[in-house]
């Protein structure tokens, strides 16, 4: 037996929630389920026939050389970009917050790449790494170091993309750390000073680092999730080359699913990509839980 005001409230709630609920299913949850189902079929874009093939696409992935190269490149990218972004972001946040003078300027300068169009800036980086007139090689020549055609060399191209990625995301890590630093009670530093230990390193080791734990886990997770999504720079600067050295998961997915129209195979790669993202989230949840219980 529901009384009238409650029923009216529930009806209003359904009406208010319905548009977003339907859109959420139509644009996110439904397609995500569809990708999973599609990956179990042999469907190619535009084909009239479709049949269930079980895990055949995943078996093909297992023996697909390009897929393994792509996976390896993605893991190298994430494995280097994440520690660099998080480390530099943390150093920037702590150094900027250690004084008041110029704080707003530095924060804006380090954050500006986050708010700028990556695709346009990637073209500037391409010019900076230009083999003859690029700024990087000119600077290296000036100090007598060897130069290279960085984006055309299979040994260096991925690292150039990592540099661009770190440059772009560092400011994001920085502002997230700044928010974390603000939540550390100042008395902890005062207590440390009373103990006679107020050197910069001591302050960092004994208060900042342990107190920043949850923020650190969060920033690592976000940076990792964003790094797994690397695509724009690959698409516009290297197209996966030279010699597949910058082939990454999303790029492989787009080539299979859209260029070669192999929708079901692309769907299987999407599922692998989703799996890594969920793994990061799971690790984050586990780490934060343990800290909450025992930390």
């Amino acid at each position: 037996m529901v009384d009238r005001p409650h029923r009216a409230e529930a009806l209003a709630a359904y009406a208010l929630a319905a548009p977003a609920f339907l859109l959420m299913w139509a644009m996110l949850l439904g397609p995500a389920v569809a990708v999973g189902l599609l990956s179990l079929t042999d469907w190619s874009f535009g084909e009239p026939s479709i049949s269930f093939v079980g895990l055949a696409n995943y078996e093909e992935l297992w023996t697909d050389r390009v897929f393994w190269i792509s996976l390896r490149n993605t893991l190298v990218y994430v494995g280097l970009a994440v520690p660099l972004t998080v480390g530099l972001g943390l150093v920037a946040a702590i150094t900027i917050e250690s004084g008041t003078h110029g704080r707003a300027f530095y924060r804006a300068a380090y954050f500006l790449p986050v708010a700028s169009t990556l695709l346009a800036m990637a073209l500037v980086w391409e010019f900076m790494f230009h083999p003859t007139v690029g700024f990087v090689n000119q600077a290296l020549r000036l100090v007598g170091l060897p130069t290279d055609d960085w984006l055309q060399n299979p040994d260096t191209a991925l690292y150039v993309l990592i540099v661009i990625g770190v440059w772009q995301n560092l400011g994001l890590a920085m502002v997230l750390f700044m928010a974390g630093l603000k939540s550390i009670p100042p008395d902890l530093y005062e207590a440390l000073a009373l103990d006679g230990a107020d050197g910069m390193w001591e302050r960092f080791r004994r208060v900042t680092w342990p107190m920043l734990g949850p923020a650190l886990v969060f920033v690592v997770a976000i940076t990792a999730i964003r790094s797994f999504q690397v695509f724009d720079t690959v698409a516009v600067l290297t197209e996966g080359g030279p010699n597949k050295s910058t082939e990454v998961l999303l790029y492989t997915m787009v080539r299979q699913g859209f260029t070669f129209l192999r929708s079901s195979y692309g769907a299987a790669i999407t599922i692998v990509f989703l799996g890594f993202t969920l793994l990061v989230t799971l690790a984050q949840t586990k780490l934060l839980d343990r800290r909450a219980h025992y930390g």
Partner: protein
Amino acid sequence: MVKGIFRHVFLMAGAIVMLAPFAIMISLSLKSPGEIFSPHFTLWPQQWAAWENYHAAFTKVPLARFLLNGFIVTFFIFLGQAVTALPMAYALAKLRWRGRETTFALVLLALLIPPQVPAIPLYIAMWKLDLLNSYAGIILPSTISVFGIFLMRQFFRTVPDDLIAAARMDGLSELAIVWRIMLPTAAPAIAAFACLSFIWNWNEFFWPFLAVQDEHLMTPPLGIAFFSNAEAGTAYGPLMAAACVVTAPLAIAFLLAQRAFIAGVTMTGVK
């Protein structure tokens, strides 16, 4: 004192690296081709070709059209996100109904899905509906922001119940409460959300890259990639001019509304 100087030297060195690409972009956009390809780089142009470069950027490709598309797309996406997210956030935060917890769990689940995951089924659906190569095709997939729902729900929970009870006593409908009571009280959160939505969707490359081939529908990042492909590393001056023009709206908006931008980004995490 020494520590303060050290801090500035260190941070200034970092700031130079962070800002260098912007400085180089602006510098190149003002230089003649001869100077761009000279072996000695100077930041300040020796031979000015600003007018030629910017003129070429706007005439070789429909750059003005790209910008217009960028504004149209970001505006309608944010409109769609706000119109759907606010009522649902209110229902999740302040109303009692069966299925509320399940719905919120679904929102949290959807929050875990990267935006590239639905691409293949959405592409198929848009193709069936004949919406590829149209504004609707670019806009529709982004009109839902589960992040926006989550953010606004958290904010609405802090709004006192008395305020809502008083509005009901005045005879306001639940929908009117969303727009006339909740919206104004949530202005700072909505501003932060608007900034985020603007950053994400102005810069979004992945979906427009898949869904649009027609030059006249290209958004700014897609347009500049198209320009770069067409010129294949020759017309750096005009290309950099176009890059400046595409980056400017966001950069200027950021410098004017730093607080809202940084607040928005800090509140996030994931799309």
